[in-house]
């Protein structure tokens, strides 16, 4: 069994595994210290063959990096592959679909709250939600003057998120907060 894994490691170093196999062996290496040692030794051997220099990372090399990374913020960027523009359109379409269906959701939510919880007085909320819902049905939440309605494009969505903090108060899961990529310096 171990010999099979060791052979996979050998192939992995030579880029002779397909993507799934490569991911699989990497994940196994991540979990098994002896496999980590094995790949380190194979790499060291390869380097000696080429340079006559022996370099061997400490056993806690990746663990130290991992420790530091745990202190770092997480990334929550939009679900778009850097090479796949189509996924940006999917993101935009998702916004339009959510917006188009909000009328029903608003009414159901408001009425549910009104009847189920006596403590929350939402008569004004129901009224405004219903009014807004009716308004939303007749006028899409995103449209272009003089042209056919179009989805909010990704660029405008990015601008909106930089413009105000409404992104935090809407329930859209895939917003892209400007943490870490924007450090405003005020004048």
């Amino acid at each position, binding site marked *: 069994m171990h010999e099979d894994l*060791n*052979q996979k490691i*050998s*192939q992995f170093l*030579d*880029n*002779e*595994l*397909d*993507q799934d196999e*490569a*991911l699989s062996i*990497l*994940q196994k*290496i*991540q979990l098994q210290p002896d496999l*980590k040692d*094995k*790949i*380190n*030794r*194979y*790499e*060291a*051997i*390869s*380097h*000696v*063959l*080429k*340079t*006559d*220099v*022996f*370099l*061997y*990372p*400490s056993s806690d*090399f*990746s663990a*130290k*990096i*991992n420790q*530091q*990374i*745990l202190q*770092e913020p*997480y*990334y*929550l*960027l939009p*679900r778009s*592959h*850097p*090479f796949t523009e189509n996924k940006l359109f999917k993101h935009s379409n998702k916004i339009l679909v959510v917006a188009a269906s909000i009328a029903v959701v608003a009414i159901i939510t408001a009425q549910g709250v009104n009847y189920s919880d006596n403590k929350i007085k939402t008569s004004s909320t129901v009224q405004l939600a219903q009014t807004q819902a009716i308004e939303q049905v007749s006028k899409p939440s995103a449209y272009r003057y003089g042209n056919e309605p179009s989805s909010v494009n990704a660029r405008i969505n990015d601008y909106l998120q930089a413009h105000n903090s409404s992104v935090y108060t809407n329930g859209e899961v895939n917003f892209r907060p400007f943490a*870490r*990529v924007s450090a405003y310096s005020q004048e």
Partner: protein
Amino acid sequence: MNSQIRASEQLDQDLVLRVQQGDKSAYDLLVIKYQHKIIQLVNRYIKDPSEAQDVAQEAFIKAYRALGNFRGESAFYTWLYRIAINTAKNYLVSRARRNSDYQVDIQDAEQIENAPQLQGMETPDRLLSNQEIVETIKSAIENLPEEMRVAIMLREFEGLSYEEISVAMDCPVGTVRSRIFRAREAIDSKLTPLLD
């Protein structure tokens, strides 16, 4: 060879995407995949294995912090290498300033790597140990059966794919795979006792 590189780059892209979606463990996989290459790269500048490891770790952490800006126009490893080189150069400059025998700036970093007085000096014991390890590995290769030695040399020195080696050696790809693996295992068996 191109298809192998594409598969490797595709894996990198997917792992980067996972990190950008909040999966930090995916970054650990990238570290495992590239730790040796980055240490080797940094060591070309730093010349001290211990310091090179520290600088390599710093490079990986910087890369994580900059990952939000990685847009995939270059391959991930190219982008990572650039960060590692910059980190190594910055380290050399700051180390030179600490020694402060002469003024340096970032443009001088290329000369610094050749300046003997700034190269990391190994301890005699460590030098001896490393030399012994290098000799052991070289000796192990010399003692390999010829077909295994040829296979691994074509792979390591010429960078040929298994497919290309199978053509050169007129044998099936599976045989090439097996010969290279057994060569590594034979050398490893000589190396492991020295590391314990």
